[in-house]
């Protein structure tokens, strides 16, 4: 007899776990993906269906199984130089900011960096534009919720499939070594990025203020309320006048007062500069 199918209530519980831990919602018409994504975990544990998995989740003392489930359900799709024109514009913005700030390194936060292609692309771009070392090299902090994605990012190891998505061959020859069928980023590239685990919906922002924050293709599946909370976190981490970069098709409009469309850089958002009035009030209060 084939094992009984997973029930809708088990799927709902797993979707709820994902949303609670990550803010990510799964649309009803994509619920079937849950079972597909969790197949390897079911197989590994000898479980017949999601109901049995839920039973283990409830019984488990540590959160380890929960972490594993959440990790498997996160959409970690990314590529090198994704929306290349946008990253070029980030390079332009950094060059412009350098004219105003010369006494410290600029700071960039790649929030929701997945397996690292986004921050590594930025590091290549900066180095190629003569902003690779010393004071003029921006500091790049890259964070993600998923420990598995971060471990891969830190290893700098990419499959042939991943490497040829978006990465021009000359850059590949400069910054990567071939190893078996894979490609490994040179230490000189990986060292330019600080990878850290961070949950946008639960943790305070990484310390210090950032000049530019990229949070691309992360907020798509958040509820409006959760998005608002995340914009608050991003706003707490950005310098007044700093730039926020979202994914294609994502916007802040109607969702936060902390950011407004940048006039100088199309598609980017400028962090509000507190007026004298409000900063005085803040200082007083």
């Amino acid at each position: 007899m084939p094992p009984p199918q997973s029930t809708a209530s088990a799927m709902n519980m797993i979707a709820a776990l994902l949303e609670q831990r990550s803010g990510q919602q799964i649309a009803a018409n994509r619920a079937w993906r849950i079972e597909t994504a969790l197949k390897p975990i079911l197989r590994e544990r000898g479980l017949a269906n999601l109901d049995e998995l839920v039973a283990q989740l409830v019984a488990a003392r540590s959160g380890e199984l929960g972490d594993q489930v959440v990790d498997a359900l996160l959409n970690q799709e990314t590529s090198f130089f994704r929306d290349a024109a946008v990253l070029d514009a980030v390079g332009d913005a950094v060059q412009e900011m350098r004219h105003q700030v010369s006494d410290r390194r600029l700071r960039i936060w790649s929030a929701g960096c997945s397996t690292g292609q986004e921050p590594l692309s930025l590091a290549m771009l900066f180095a190629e534009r003569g902003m690779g070392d010393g004071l003029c090299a921006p500091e790049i902090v890259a964070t993600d919720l998923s420990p598995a994605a971060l471990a891969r990012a830190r290893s700098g190891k990419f499959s042939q499939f991943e490497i040829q998505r978006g990465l021009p061959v000359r850059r590949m020859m400069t910054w990567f070594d071939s190893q078996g069928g894979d490609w490994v980023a040179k230490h000189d590239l990986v060292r330019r990025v600080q990878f850290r685990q961070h949950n946008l919906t639960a943790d305070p922002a990484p310390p210090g203020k950032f000049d530019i924050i990229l949070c691309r293709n992360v907020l798509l599946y958040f509820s409006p309320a959760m998005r608002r909370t995340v914009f608050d976190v991003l706003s707490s981490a950005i310098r007044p006048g700093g730039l926020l970069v979202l994914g294609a098709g994502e916007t802040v409009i109607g969702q936060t007062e902390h950011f407004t469309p940048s006039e100088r850089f199309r598609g980017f958002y400028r962090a509000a500069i507190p007026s004298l009035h409000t900063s005085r009030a803040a200082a007083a209060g």
Partner: protein
Amino acid sequence: MKTCLVVDDSKVIRKVARHILETLDFEVREAGDGREALDSCLDTPPDVILLDWNMPVMSGMDFLRALKDSGLPTRPKVVFCTTENGMAYIRAAIEAGADEYVMKPFDRETLESKLQIVGVA
């Protein structure tokens, strides 16, 4: 509409490539070996050539050399396809004048990304 010349001795691979390229709005021409490809280029140069590297009649390397010597006023962009991914191998092809490379088998997204990189998509 941009034109792409697909050069491969395998009819099946040409067919797959044609299918993908047509969904990307390319006009597609085919050649079964390097000589045919060279004739086709001299006749009407395409915008880009998807070039198999290991062909029996005229290798990809020989084709690139012949193309260079042919005196075409503007050289089409060349994306070479291969099943090998050693660094030395890729470097040799780039030094011979290829602009990009793609590993076989490739999917639509990968090919599109390479065509964007060489500036034709």
